[in-house]
């Protein structure tokens, strides 16, 4: 009897959904520290030290910034503790330019390391 209940398509479907949900939630709990890291480079791909990087959440009308970091000698920066699922990141250095990008996350505060560096470009005038 137990075997037929276990083999029922209802048990298999809802059991699979339950298992996937549990595994997903475990993954979320283990990866939701809100860490966001990356590198800032110039147009030639050289690391930029001392660039200001801001991380925030972009809404339709405004950007709520979570914090600000300064890149190290290798152009690296790292944030932690944000709780966004749609991240807006801005890197800027006087004389070199600015880089802006938006990143979608699969859950709030998902840890993410940018695979492509933020490339500073001269700000458009006007």
């Amino acid at each position: 009897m137990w075997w037929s209940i276990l083999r029922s398509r209802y048990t298999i479907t809802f059991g699979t959904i339950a298992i996937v949900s549990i595994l997903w939630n475990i993954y979320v709990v283990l990866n939701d520290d809100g860490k966001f890291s990356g590198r800032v480079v110039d147009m030639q791909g050289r690391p930029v030290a001392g660039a200001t990087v801001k991380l925030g959440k972009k809404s339709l009308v405004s950007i709520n910034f979570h914090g600000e970091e300064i890149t190290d000698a290798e152009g690296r920066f790292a944030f932690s503790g944000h709780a966004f699922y749609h991240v807006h990141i801005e890197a800027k250095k006087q004389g070199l330019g600015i880089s802006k990008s938006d990143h979608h996350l699969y859950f709030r505060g998902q840890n993410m390391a940018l695979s492509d560096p933020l490339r500073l470009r001269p700000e458009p005038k006007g």
Partner: protein
Amino acid sequence: MHRYPHWPLHLALSAVCAAMLVPFYWVLKTSLTGENIFTFPPSILPEDPHLFFFVDVWYTIPFASYLANSLIVSIIVVAANVFLNAMAGYALTRDFVGKKAVIMLFLSCMMIPFQATIIPAYLITKELGLLNSYMGMALPLCSTIVCIFVFKASFDAIPKSLIDAARIDGVPDWMIIYRIMVPLSQSAIATNVILAFIWSWNNFLWPLVIIRDEAMQTLPLGLSRFLSVYENTTGALYAFCIMVLVPGLVIFLLSQKQFIAGLTSGAAKG
């Protein structure tokens, strides 16, 4: 005997199926790409699909709360339908004075749309103190006439000798229903479950009338609220539609065999 090839019929049926599935495919595709519905020429295959619109929906509105509310109401409705309709269906299989009048009354009540009775339904729910509650949302759907007749048709198909034998052995009526009739009417149960679930799941007007608290809102109300608050979110809107559709679709696909058997049971009865 000359046999005609089947392929023209299959081709025609496949074309009809494809035509009927196109809107669903389009909703799914748009939920994955966010492509504007006015884009011309439209892309047939999804370009650069992703799941981020579903994430937006999950966090932009209290989706989990809406989902839980819809599930609670649907579970109450499904349980009440199976329990109450089985009893009502059994009663209609027995002979009693005024049976035809009761059946006529049921059939005539089916012709009155719910919108026409919504004010008395509201007043009764208010008198019962069930406004803004799960029970209040479930109440009008707790027993439906169509589902009573589904049970009646299924019970009619069970041999009378079986019931007579049980009665001779001294089995009470409630035990005849739940030990003999209901286990032999799995297709009627599946039909009740599917219809009750889908009606409850898609119910918009009644929850709109009796729910005041935002925390008690169900998914159709959430969809309406989402539409009114966020106008320029094609992808998220379609993702929301998919998230609302999927549970009903899963229930239907799981029980479709029994559902079709339930709807046609008694159809060939003389």
